[in-house]
C-alpha cells in the first residue's frame, strides 16, 4: 500500500468522523425557529415578540432534566414580569411518561411535547437537557448543554439579566 492511498484513507476516516458527530444544528447567533410551525402538543404562548426566551429540550427519562425544572420554575417566577418566557419541549415518545414527570416536578412555565420529533430533529440538541437562551430580537445568544446544578443556575441568572436589560 502506498502513502497517497493511506493519506486518502485518513482523510476519509476523518470525514466520516465529522459526519457522525454533528454539533447542534441551531447555533449561537442563529435566528430561533418559529415554534408554531412544528405541530407541538400543548398550547404555546400567544407571542414571543420582544421576549427573552429559554427554549429547553428535556425528557422524562433524563436525570439532570428533573434537577433543572425547579431552577427554571424559580427563574420563570422571578423574571416573567420583566419579559422572560420559558418553553420546555419534551421529547418523550409517550405522553403518559411526560405527565407522570410533570406531576412529580410541577412547574408554572410552558411545557409542550414534540411528539413527532420534528422540532428536535431541526434543532439537534447535543445532549439532554439542552437549552437555548434567545434574546428579545429572536436570536439565539447562549446555549447550555446539560444541566450542572448551581453552575448552570448562576450562568442562567447572569445571561437572562443581561438580555432582559435590552429594551424590547
Amino acid at each position, binding site marked *: 500500500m502506498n502513502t497517497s*492511498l493511506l493519506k486518502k484513507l485518513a482523510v476519509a476516516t476523518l470525514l466520516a468522523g465529522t459526519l457522525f458527530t454533528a454539533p447542534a444544528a441551531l447555533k449561537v447567533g442563529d435566528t430561533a425557529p418559529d415554534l408554531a410551525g412544528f405541530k407541538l402538543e400543548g398550547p404555546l404562548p400567544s407571542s414571543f415578540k420582544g421576549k427573552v426566551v429559554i427554549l429547553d429540550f428535556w425528557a422524562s427519562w*433524563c*436525570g439532570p432534566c428533573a434537577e433543572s425544572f425547579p431552577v427554571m420554575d424559580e427563574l420563570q417566577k422571578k423574571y416573567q414580569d420583566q419579559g422572560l418566557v420559558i418553553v420546555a419541549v419534551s421529547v418523550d*415518545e409517550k405522553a403518559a411518561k411526560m405527565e407522570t414527570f410533570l406531576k412529580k416536578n410541577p412547574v408554572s412555565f410552558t411545557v409542550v411535547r414534540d411528539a413527532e420529533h420534528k422540532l428536535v430533529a431541526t434543532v439537534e*440538541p447535543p445532549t439532554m*437537557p439542552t437549552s437555548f437562551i434567545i434574546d428579545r430580537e429572536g436570536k439565539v445568544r447562549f446555549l447550555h448543554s446539560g444541566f450542572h446544578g448551581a453552575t448552570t443556575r448562576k450562568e442562567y441568572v447572569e445571561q437572562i439579566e443581561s438580555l432582559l436589560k435590552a429594551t424590547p
Partner: protein
Amino acid sequence: MKLRLLFTAGTAALLFTTGCANVKPWERGTLTDDTMRADRHPIETAQAQHIWFSREEATGGSGVGGGGCGCN
C-alpha cells in the same frame, strides 16, 4: 489500478455501511428504560456476584452504574 479502485471502494463501503446506529440524544428513552439494566434485581445480582466470586475467580469491576441516558 483496478485493484486499487476496488480496494478504495471496499474501504469506503466499510466506513459508511457499518452496523453502528447513531442514536440521537433525544432518542434514548428506550435505552434508559429500567428493563435495559442488567442489575435491576438486587438479589439476582448478589447471587450472580457470589457465583462469579466463588466459582469463576472473577469478581468486581461491575460496580459502575451506567444508564443509557448519556445526559449532561
